[in-house]
C-alpha cells in the first residue's frame, strides 16, 4: 500500500538501527506515549534492533485502558435499559468494569449476552444514522478516545443537533494527552529521558503543547508516526538530542503533522466540549485532562439523560495496570500476566485493548 510499504522498508530500518548504534554512547530511557506505537514496536520486534542501553518504556496512550471502571459500570447499566441501543467501538466491549462476573454483567459483551442491544460501530456518525433510523429507541454512543477521536464525536453531536435528533446521546470518556504527560514527567519516580509524542493526536492538536512540555521538563520530545521507519527515525532523533544535551521539540511525522494541527477539527471540539478534571484508570485524577459536553450540547449527555452517574470504585488488587501505564513496570513483570489475566478473561484493560501493552506482549510473545 502506498505511503505504508515504504515505511516498512527493512533496508531503511537497518540503516536507522545502525545510526542509533553509532549515536548512542550510554544508556537512555525513552517512552512512546501511544499504544498504537507500542503495538508497532512489539509486533515488528524493533527493540531487538536497538543497542542494549536504549530502553523503551510504554506510555499511557490507550484510551480504552485508562477509562475508569465506574464509567464501564455506567455503560453497562445504560445498555441494559430496554429502550436503549448502545453503540461503541469494538475495543470497549470486553473491558471489565468494577463488578465481578458473578454479580451480573461486568463488561458490555456480558450485557449483550444477557439480552442488551449493544452494537459495534466503525464511526460515531454510524450511531447518528442508527438514531435517525430508530426514532422509537434511545441511541447512546460510548465516546472514548484521545484528541484524535474527539473531533469525530463532536461532529456526531453537531449532526444530531442539526437533524433535531432527541434520541441520541453520548457517554463521554474523553481524555487529553498533555496533562497526563505533565503528571508523568513531574512524578518523582519518573525515569523517562525522552518522549516519542503521539503522531495522530498531533495531526489534530498540532505540536505547540509538546514544545511547552519539552521546555518545562527539559526532555527531548519527537512527534513520531507509527510504521517501523517512523519509530526508528523518532528514536534516532531523540537519541541524537540526548547525546548532544539538547531538549526540544522535533517533528518526525512531518508528512502528516502541521505545527498548528487541524483547524476545522479543533473548532468542532472547542464548540461542543470543554476541558474538565478526569480520573484515569490506574493513574487517578488528573486536573484538566478530560472533556465534557458544554452548553448547549449537555442535553446530549447520556449520564444526564439516564441518571446513571458513575460511582468511584477501587480497582482489582491483582492487576498492576497503573504501574504499567506509567512505564514503571512491564507487562511480563505482573504476576497475573498470561495466567490469571488473558485477553479472553482480562483483569485489566491493557490486556483487552488492541493498543494495550499487556495485549501486545501476550499476542507477540514478548516475555523479556
Amino acid at each position, binding site marked *: *500500500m*502506498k*505511503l*505504508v510499504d*515504504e*515505511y516498512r*522498508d*527493512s*533496508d*531503511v530500518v*537497518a*540503516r*536507522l*538501527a*545502525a*545510526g542509533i548504534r*553509532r549515536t548512542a554512547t550510554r544508556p537512555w530511557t525513552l517512552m512512546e506515549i*501511544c*499504544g*498504537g506505537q507500542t503495538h508497532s514496536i512489539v509486533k515488528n520486534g524493533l527493540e531487538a534492533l536497538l543497542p542494549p542501553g536504549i530502553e523503551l518504556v510504554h506510555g499511557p*496512550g*490507550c*484510551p*480504552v485502558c485508562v477509562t475508569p471502571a465506574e464509567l464501564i459500570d455506567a455503560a453497562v447499566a445504560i445498555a441494559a435499559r430496554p429502550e436503549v441501543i448502545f453503540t461503541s*467501538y469494538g*475495543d470497549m466491549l470486553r473491558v471489565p468494569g468494577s463488578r465481578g462476573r458473578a454479580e451480573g454483567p461486568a463488561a458490555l459483551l456480558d450485557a449483550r449476552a444477557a439480552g442488551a442491544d449493544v452494537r459495534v460501530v*466503525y*464511526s*460515531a*456518525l*454510524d450511531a447518528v444514522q442508527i438514531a435517525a433510523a430508530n426514532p422509537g429507541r434511545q441511541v447512546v454512543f460510548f465516546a*472514548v*478516545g*484521545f484528541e*484524535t*477521536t474527539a*473531533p*469525530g464525536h463532536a*461532529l456526531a453531536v*453537531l*449532526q444530531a443537533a*442539526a437533524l433535531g435528533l432527541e434520541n441520541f446521546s453520548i457517554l463521554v470518556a474523553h481524555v487529553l494527552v498533555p496533562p497526563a504527560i505533565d503528571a508523568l514527567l513531574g512524578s518523582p519516580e519518573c525515569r523517562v529521558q525522552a518522549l516519542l509524542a503521539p503522531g*495522530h*493526536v498531533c*495531526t*489534530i492538536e498540532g505540536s505547540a503543547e509538546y514544545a511547552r512540555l519539552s521546555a518545562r521538563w527539559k526532555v527531548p520530545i519527537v512527534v513520531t508516526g*507509527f510504521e517501523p*521507519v517512523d519509530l526508528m*527515525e523518532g528514536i534516532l532523533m531523540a537519541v541524537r538530542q540526548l547525546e548532544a544535551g539538547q531538549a526540544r521539540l522535533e517533528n518526525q511525522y*512531518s*508528512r*502528516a*503533522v*502541521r505545527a498548528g494541527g*487541524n483547524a*476545522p*477539527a479543533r473548532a*468542532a471540539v472547542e464548540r461542543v466540549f470543554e476541558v474538565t478534571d478526569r480520573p484515569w484508570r490506574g493513574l487517578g485524577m488528573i486536573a484538566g485532562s478530560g472533556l465534557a459536553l458544554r452548553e448547549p450540547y449537555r442535553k446530549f449527555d447520556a449520564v444526564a439523560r439516564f441518571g446513571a452517574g458513575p460511582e468511584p470504585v477501587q480497582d482489582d488488587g491483582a492487576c498492576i495496570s497503573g504501574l504499567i501505564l506509567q512505564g514503571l513496570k512491564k507487562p511480563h513483570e505482573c504476576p497475573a500476566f498470561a495466567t490469571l489475566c488473558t485477553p479472553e478473561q482480562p483483569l485489566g484493560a491493557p490486556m483487552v*485493548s488492541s*493498543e494495550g501493552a499487556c495485549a501486545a506482549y501476550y499476542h507477540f510473545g514478548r516475555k523479556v
Partner: protein
Amino acid sequence: MCLAVPGQVVEVEGDDPAFLRGRVDFSGVRREVSFAFTPEARPGDYVLVHAGFALTVVDQEEALLTLEELRRLGEAVEASPETAEEAPTP
C-alpha cells in the same frame, strides 16, 4: 484507538461542511469517509483516515523527501574503511 490508515481520495461531495462526505480507496477497498475536517482534499490526494474521518492530507512531497534522505542514511560512514564493520546487519 488512534490508528489512522492512508488511503487515496476518489471523490468528495456535499455543500454543508459538517456533512461533507466522500469515498476513499484503501488498496482497492473503498469506504465512505467524512471530509468535514479536510475540506481541502481533492481526488488523487492521500488522506489519513481514523474512525470514518479524514484527519489530514498527507504531504506526498515531504514524504518522498524524507524517504530519499533515509535511504542514504549512513552512506558517508559506510564508505570510510575504519567504520565499515559497523555497517547494518539486518
